[in-house]
């Protein structure tokens, strides 16, 4: 099945996140993607990526934007979120589940993305994240 490709250019405004996520989820739903994965994994993963892009990538700068490129089919959804910031190093993040970190207020965003998405990649500059979610394999009849 041919993927449905979507592009969003979002203002750097946290209030835009929920509507953008629901728009993308609804398109994936229309394409036939698994509802359970959309309800939790997709919505939380994409929300986290957008929030990180706006808060940390673009440093809350209202003049900046976040670009979303998504490709959806019934079998797979792929979302790339890119900010206009200088990037970061995703290899030196602390594990928020360690007892010493559990009471911290922040530090769970990327952890959740990696747990909820099947594949996660950052570009070399560290200002774009690509997430892939695969539908459960169907059992043979």
């Amino acid at each position, binding site marked *: 099945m041919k993927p449905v490709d979507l592009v969003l250019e979002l203002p750097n405004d946290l209030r835009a*996140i*929920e509507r953008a996520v629901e728009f993308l989820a609804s398109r994936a739903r229309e394409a036939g993607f698994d509802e359970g994965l959309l309800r939790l994994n997709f919505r939380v993963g994409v*929300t986290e990526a957008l929030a990180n892009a706006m808060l940390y990538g673009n440093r809350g700068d209202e003049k900046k934007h976040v670009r979303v490129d998504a490709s959806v089919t019934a079998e797979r959804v792929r979302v790339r979120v890119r900010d206009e910031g200088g990037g970061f190093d995703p290899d030196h993040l602390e594990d928020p589940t360690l007892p010493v970190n*559990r009471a911290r*207020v922040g530090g*769970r*965003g990327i952890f*959740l993305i990696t747990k909820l998405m099947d594949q996660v990649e950052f570009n070399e500059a560290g200002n774009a994240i690509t997430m892939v979610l695969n539908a459960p394999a169907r059992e043979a009849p």
Partner: protein
Amino acid sequence: MSFDVKKQDDVTVIDVEGQLIVGNRQELKQKVLEELEGGARKFLIDFADTGYIDSSGLGVLVSLSKKIREQGGELRLANLNDDLRTLFELTKLDTLFHIANSRDEALTSF
């Protein structure tokens, strides 16, 4: 999305209707802190009508838990659906909060 605050005896009950995410978490924090400053010490946050929570939402719950405890108060969470429980378990925050299966169970646990 809205936060509905009610009193049930000496417990401040907050119903989270919609999502608890980065765009609205400050509103929940503000409402709880106002009640805390007003002398409330027992808090129940009910997630029966909550779709999902992101890490910012989890973070604000951690922050509120600490502030409530510092004032000698207690916090309970109730009615987490399977998706929300998954998030708490993934992040091991289920070990940090008192999570009840129902509102009544939470109210009687104070």
